[in-house]
């Protein structure tokens, strides 16, 4: 979800950029950056993102991932699912 959201916000982005963005915005979420890549492969299979090679900011070849309409739909599904879970958790915490 985080990857999809990042792509939705920033537009096409390479793997390093996605990892940087997630770390910078969340600050507390520490993940193995490399695990991003198996995740991206799975999204490629599902057809949520597409990938193509392009020029990075410092003029190097980098693979840019782009959100597809299918991926956008998946993002909204996941966000609403996440919100539902969050609401449930919030309710439990509040009543305590």
């Amino acid at each position, binding site marked *: 979800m985080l990857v999809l959201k990042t792509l939705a916000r920033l537009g096409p982005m390479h*793997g390093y950029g996605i990892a940087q963005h997630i770390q910078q915005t969340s600050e507390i979420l520490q993940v*193995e*950056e490399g*695990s991003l*890549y198996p995740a991206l*492969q799975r999204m490629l299979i599902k*057809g949520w993102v597409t990938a193509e090679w392009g020029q990075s900011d410092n003029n190097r*070849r*980098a*693979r840019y991932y782009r959100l597809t309409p299918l991926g956008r739909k998946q993002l909204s599904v996941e966000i609403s699912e996440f919100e539902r879970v969050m609401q449930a958790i919030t309710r439990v915490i509040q009543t305590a």
Partner: protein
Amino acid sequence: MERFDELRRRLMFLFRRREFESDLEEEMRFHLEMKARDAGPDAARRQFGNATLLSEQSREAWGWASLDAWLGDLKYATRMLGKNSGFTAVAVLTMALGIGVNTVMFSVVYAVLLRSLPYPDASRLIRAARPDAKADSVNMPELAFWKEHSTSVSSMAGYRDPWPHGLNLGDRTETVQTMEVSTDFLRTLQVAPQIGREFQPEDTRPKAPRAVMLSDRLWRQTFGGDHGIAGRVVTIDGVAYTVVGVLPAGFWFENAPDALLPLRFTGTIGDLGSNTQSVARLKPGVSLARARAEFAALSESYRRTRPAQENNPPLTAQSYQEWLRGDVRSTLWLLFGASALLLLIACTNLAGLLLARLAARQKEVAMRMALGSGAGRVLRQFLTENLLLSVLGGAVGLAAAAWLLDGFVRLAPFKLPSAERIHLDWTVLAFTGGIVIGTTLLFSLAPFVNAWRLNVYETLKTSGRSGAGGRTCTRSLLVVGETALSVALVLAAALMIQSLYRLHRQRLGFDPRGVVTFRTPLSPQQRRNPAELRAFNQDLLERLQMLPGVRAAAAVSLLPLTSQGNFPVEHAGHPDHDFGGMEIRHVTPGYFEAVRTPIVLGRGFDARDAEDAPPVILVNETVARAWWSQASPLGDRVVIGRFRGKDLSSDTHETPREVIGVVADTKTVELKAAPRPTVYVPLAQTSWYDGSMNWVVRGNVTATALDRTVAAASPAVRMDRLRSMEEIVASTTTDSRFYAWLFGAFAGFALALTAVGVYGLLAFSVARRTNEIGTRMALGASRGSVLAMILKQGIALTFAGLLLGLAGAVGLARSLAKLLFGVRPLDPVSFAAVAGVLLCVGLVASYLPARRATRVDPMEALRNE
């Protein structure tokens, strides 16, 4: 749709995996470099995680990991099989043999027994039959009655056995098989002519213009596929016929006729003979059982309406398709069973070989398992190797099958009810694929069980070859089983070979060696002019007798072993002397000398028995025994054309003939059957006989010389059916020879496999027991006693298999009874022969390992420990 897209992407990955992998690698490197620039190389690597593991996970995401692993297995399997090329060759050939033979048999079984006949709804076709009576066919009045009154069939038609006729084509004559069929024949089969129409009722009236339908083959080959052929007039045996239609391409019917003629009521005695087959189509929704009930009722009312006419047994309905297959069904299943047995033996043999190999590879397996490979993973590796063996064997077998199938179909002594050539098609390929997988599982079973029980620790602990090696108990069982299965095939072969031997020992009643035969079909003029025919026969006989190299020449109406007749003949004054119907042969003087059939009493025909001389006749021993028993028939009288006191042929004008001699019995129809009652009359005294003659020539003479002689006697006649008398005799034993060869080959393969099995097991056992044998010899055992010990082991195995096999073979032998001649299924000689052959094979197969055991050097064996 999404799933499909996903699959498409996965497949894309599979085909462009190099690109994908380099992409991933470059992308990860990019990531690391960027990170290193921002945070330093160590931190970058720490935060990124295990790159190798991650890229592996990425690859697995595409879902081809198991394929990868399998490809690895396959590569390893190929290498392992390549390394043991001897083992691989034996295994692949064994499987190829089993699979090839089964593929051939299945192709035939499928084409003949499983595939429907080439008519729409072929299972709804029935026929009228008398299952219990000898004559299974109907007569014309019955056919007409059933056509009129049966309500359970939508249409019904009659047809007769095909008959060769000469199609006159200007300067040459082509022999075509014509079949007479009634109206509604094609309508019943639901087949439409590709040109013109089928026969109408007006075509079948006695005086109607003669009509003919051509087969697609005849139309294309002889008439060049002329689309305007309907209405054209063709000449058959000198008579004009109008072509009314052409049968569709791919049309097939029993005996594959070349042309159809309308079946006419002739208004003569022929209509009353049960000589017509019937085929009918059940109405939709009507069951065979209902048709049977109706046919029984119709038989009853038919008999009531025509009490005087006949006492034919009642008619019943049976499936046409089942009836057509009836003859070959049990034989084909039997052959299929035998080939399945062969495959089973091949599997057993291979299982034994694999067990031996597994024993040799135990160290490797234990090592792999110790290094963390699961038992399942190891077994998968073995299964891959075995599957590779089977697939290779299957491929070789399939290639062999494609090559063998044509020959098999050509040689097989049964008619195959199918229009198409029997060939390998997708169904057959699927069957072959099925047996490849099935056999792999089968022959992998025993090795699997053994591998499963492998104790890694124990195996690795023991060093040297002495301790290692699995128990040979499973292998012994396999060898015993294999031997038992072989016994069945060897017994079948023994019975077949003995049948063939008995057939060849049958007394023919004539000497076929050095005799050539040919036929002179009638020319159109001869057919119209009996005097000319007689002159031609006389002229040709004289010319043949004068040919250089000819010792004797004569003519006979029908050659022995070629046909069966059914002629009314009566012992004058004894209407109760009754064979039902007899053989009559018209011969020229000198026939018996030419074929060397002895005259056992009285004299043969000679020049005295001319046209105007007192009418004479010869009878064979069968007739003499039945009609005169001990008395002499000479001087007594016989009437031709008369049966139970009634004259049946009005056109022969026969008077009683005097019996002047008795001729030795000759085989009439086939070697298996007893000679039929036969009378011989001089051709000169039967002016009413207007058939073609067959000529027998004893001596050294070329086909060209014969051809020229016939042409010299009459330019309008061309001889045909030139063959030696020995060929005629051989053609009647085709089926027995075929079965003897086939089962002989099966038995040979089975014995070879059994020998390999016994040899393999003993060789292995000797190698394993080297130390033991060495010790025994060091302690004073003689070479002889060691030899005896190993031989005893081999013989014990063979003997156990033999006992088991003989017990099982009793049932099998009974099912062979139909194919046997002159030998009982439980023939003690055959059983003894089988036992002898198998024990010999066992002995020979044990001898080599036993001899190796005696060569064990005690010093060396013990030092090895």
